């Protein structure tokens, strides 16, 4: 899967679908809270549809209104090909991802080989009973990790927004499974 979403477009779609409601105060705060305001390309990499939906929603909500995101949801080999292609373009970009363990090993190895900077790398494990996070690089206490909606909050934070506590989100964005999140900047 490969498409480009403009945040404005997404916002409209979310409101019209009536599924996802974002409090105005939060939106305002998110909009002013970009940690990185550089005009770089942003790519979202996920290894399944559920991760794309929940983590992807968080990332899009966390990005500035003018920032476009290219979404790549695919299996391991395709993601690896995408990452190789993107990192070899040698222009500024941010790759934000939530992927399975097999993909994570290969993507991390690729980042090392190509000398990309990995400012965030963490493991996540969520089931009906509990959610766990462990960071290799980064601080997982900075987002609402205990929530079943952890993936949205994580995406929101990794996109650069400061605070996602008051996001009002539908339970359909819950995510279970074992994942690795990362941010790569070139």
């Amino acid at each position, binding site marked *: 899967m490969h498409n480009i979403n403009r945040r404005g477009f997404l916002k409209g779609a979310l409101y019209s679908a009536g599924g996802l409601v974002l409090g105005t105060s939060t939106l305002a705060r998110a909009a002013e809270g970009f940690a990185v305001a550089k005009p770089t390309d942003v790519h979202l990499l996920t290894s399944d549809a559920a991760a794309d939906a929940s983590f992807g929603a968080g990332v899009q909500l966390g990005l500035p209104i003018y920032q476009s995101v290219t979404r790549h949801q695919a299996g391991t080999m395709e993601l690896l090909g995408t990452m190789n292609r993107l990192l070899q373009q040698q222009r500024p970009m941010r790759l934000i991802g939530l992927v399975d363990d097999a993909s994570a090993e290969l993507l991390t*190895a690729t980042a*090392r080989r190509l*000398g990309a900077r990995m*400012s965030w790398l963490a493991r996540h494990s969520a089931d009906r009973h509990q959610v766990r996070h462990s960071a290799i690089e980064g601080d997982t206490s900075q987002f609402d990790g205990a929530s079943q909606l952890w993936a949205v909050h994580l995406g929101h934070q990794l996109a650069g927004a400061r605070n996602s506590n008051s996001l009002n989100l539908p339970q359909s964005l819950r995510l279970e499974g074992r994942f690795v999140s990362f941010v790569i*900047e070139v």
Partner: protein
Amino acid sequence: MSEQTSTVLPKGVTASEFNTAVEKFRALLGDDNVLVRNDQLTPYKKVMMPRDAAENAPSAAVTATTVEQVQGVVRICNEHKIPVWTISTGNNFGYGSAAPVERGQVVLDLKKMNRIISVDAELGTALVEPGVTYQQLYDYLEENDIPLMLSFSAPSAIAGPLGNTMDRGVGYTPYGEHFLMQCGMEVVLANGDVYRTGMGSVEGDNAWQVFKWGYGPTLDGMFTQANYGICTKMGFWLMPRPPVTKPFEIKFEDETDIADIVEFIRPLRLAQVIPNSVVIAGTLWEAATCDTRRVHYTTEPGATPDEILKQIQKDKDLGAWNVYACLYGTPEQVEVNFNIVKGALKQLGKGKLVTEEEAGGTQPFDYRAKLMTGVPNLQEFGLYNWRGGGGSMWFAPVSQARGSECDKQYALAKDILNKHGLDYVGEFIVGWRDMHHVIDVLYDRSNDEERKRAEACFNELLDEFEKRGYAVYRVNTQFQDRVAQSYGSTKRRLEHTLKRALDPNNILAPGKSGIDLNNDF
């Protein structure tokens, strides 16, 4: 998130001493080749062992592009007593990945030294630098229409012949015992000398890649799985690509079949009827490599029950054991050998033979066939999604190629793994007369309780196997000192004597294979 500089230091080195060394690295290699920021070091910190990742965190990573630069790095390390951990392609997953054995070591990443120096199509030899990947070599052979075939480890596309052989890794063709096929090495010693093994020291010689032994002591093996030098070039042999390759599989229904399988394979392997490193893979290994996840069958913690394993076997049309082998040669040779295999199988009276045509491009047959015929792929990474959570340690005891031995090892390993709530995900790789019994101890690294269990499990595997006279051929960096103990103190004393003589400042990868002058030897 992290734009900061790493605060990790090498053991016993002050911050100012370290900073001086870093400045010298910069002068030698250029700023871009000296990595000290956290976000540059992240990929060097991702480990799969149970201990805290901080214990393997590097203080810096440097990349060199020439032998002279490697000598320069060694000189600076000696001046400031900085320990340096060398990687080539750096994809040693399950054995320590790209992280150093001890916290604070500087990683010397040789990924940029990636020239294919020569390939001799007639003699079937190659000479490469450390950063060359199998994929790169494969592409080179294809582009230049050179009819030679590679043998590689399963992470073939991204791993490389030099690093894999330095760790004595294995592949799946007739050249699958990689160190056996290595011929000629160039090594930078701790004193900065550049030493060539075999014929490589003879002025004007052209037999470096064809005759291993040279004259006098032959030292190649001493540098593998060791810390006596930094390998900067390696020669090895490549198999002529035969006119016909015929990969096939034999599926066996019951886990108790393992002894019979080994007795059936050994004579065929010894007589070179089946010339390649045959694999005998268990159900879970094969299922995981084609995207079967545990969560599809159960969300209960602990070892996966046998009924579920049987269900997976049925759903995925797998054997309890899945034997993969390949025949190579002219059509006539292959036909003769295939008839011998079929005859032996008929005598055995069990096992379902599957040919490439019958498998029809399905997994796992397809990737197994590629591994046996020298086509790189990454299919086997599916193993990491079986349980998920990023924990993986190879437990790799060696055994005789004897049915009774494999039976004993399999039962013991499965018992211990299950007792600790983990699964037997294993295979046997049939060497000439030995078996590499390779088990992937998979666990959720984000779960502290499971991490502790996996650690206890690995210790128990080592202990119980040792009590029965078995030891592993290779292990991840957390357990290297422990495994060195299995091989006894005489060997360790000798290894430390050599270390003292060759590397008195203890700068080259101290701790690799348990060799470290800080040990009490």
